[in-house]
């Protein structure tokens, strides 16, 4: 490094600690003196820049601004979460209501309910041995109904509640196949009606205070079965039906 390079470096960075810069300072008295003057100028420059008055409350005001912003962000987040939750609730409710309205199924008819019940208890159709008349009477007696007599050929009886109905569920094996007989003890349909549902032939008949429902693959014996139960359930002309 020569004197010109050294003096140039003084204007670039007088605090330079490069080896050749320091070496030249050792070797050249005039340059060493120039370095001292440059350092003095640097000190003046530094003081001139440092003299800017800094408020003693600067740090506190920054920390306060920071704390305020943090708090505001937390509030915003909390408000956002609440709004999101409320929106989700409204959305869920709207979807639920819409879904409910859009997909609500029509109420099942009596025929459908009867066939549903029969499907669940299809195994009883295989029972062919006649049961005691007393068992049939007892089943009706649970609903407060006294039979005039028990039609012949009942192979199964049980008190079955299904949907909103109380029923006495029976099976009567016939030559054309088993006939299911359901007597709904408390609900009388408005009128006699025949129907077909999922391969079953059916008939519903208002009878005294309830409804007689017949189901079979073949309906050809329905008339005689209906007649038999009408005679058993309906009182003899001039005699009121016995209610226990």
């Amino acid at each position, binding site marked *: 490094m020569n004197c010109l390079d050294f003096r140039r470096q003084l*204007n670039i960075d007088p605090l330079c600690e490069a080896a050749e810069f320091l070496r030249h300072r050792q070797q050249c008295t005039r340059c060493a003196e120039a370095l001292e003057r440059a350092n003095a100028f640097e000190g003046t420059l530094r003081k001139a820049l440092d003299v800017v008055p800094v408020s003693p409350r600067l740090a506190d005001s*920054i920390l306060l601004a920071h704390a305020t912003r943090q708090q505001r962000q937390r509030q915003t987040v909390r408000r956002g979460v609440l709004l999101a939750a409320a929106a989700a609730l409204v959305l869920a409710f709207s979807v639920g209501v819409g879904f409910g309205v859009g997909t609500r199924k029509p109420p099942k008819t009596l025929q459908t309910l009867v066939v549903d019940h029969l499907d669940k208890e299809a195994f009883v159709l295989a029972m062919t041995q006649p049961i005691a008349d007393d068992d049939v009477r007892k089943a009706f007696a649970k609903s407060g109904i006294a039979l005039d007599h028990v039609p012949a050929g009942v192979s199964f009886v049980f008190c079955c509640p299904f949907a909103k109905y109380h029923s006495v569920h029976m099976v009567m094996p016939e030559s054309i196949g088993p006939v299911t007989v359901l007597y709904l003890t408390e609900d009388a349909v408005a009128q006699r009606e025949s129907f077909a549902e999922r391969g079953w032939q059916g008939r519903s008949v208002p009878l005294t205070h309830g409804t007689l429902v017949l189901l079979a693959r073949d309906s050809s014996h329905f008339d005689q079965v209906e007649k038999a139960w009408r005679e058993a359930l309906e009182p003899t002309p001039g005699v009121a039906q016995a209610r226990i």
Partner: protein
Amino acid sequence: MSSKQRQFDALVRSLSGDLFRYGYWLCGDEALAHDLVQETFLRAWRALDHLRDTTAAKAWLITILRREHARLYERKVPQFADVDEIDIADERDALTPEFAGEESVIRNAIRGLAAKYREPLLLQVLGGFSCDEIARELNITPAAVMTQVFRARQKLKVLLTGGEQEAKLHELP
């Protein structure tokens, strides 16, 4: 108080003064400098987890401050004029004893320096950056930084020496 909050508090208390001075010389306005420093620290908080080397915190904060100032500059151009074209008398310098003398002349001269000279000089003197670091910060070559800080000092010395020739500034015969 979390460790992040403690670190933040320590940074604010130890470096806000230096940043304020740097911000002041960058924008030339105390209130604006205060806002710049505050915004710098608020931005720094969000990225504090990424600060691995705490000894580099000052350089990191100065970088953030410069970006904040640049954003400000995009919206409003500060009015700096060439030192030769304006009367550099500073009312405050004339009123208080601590602002009088050689330093006062230098301060006014610094205010009058073009940004391309003032900024590297501030980074060097106030920020303590090397020429290579300034070059990276300003995205220019180290040679350009050397030229600019050289010329900045030349201009300031010319003012102090009453306008002597540049060659004399090398103090060579």
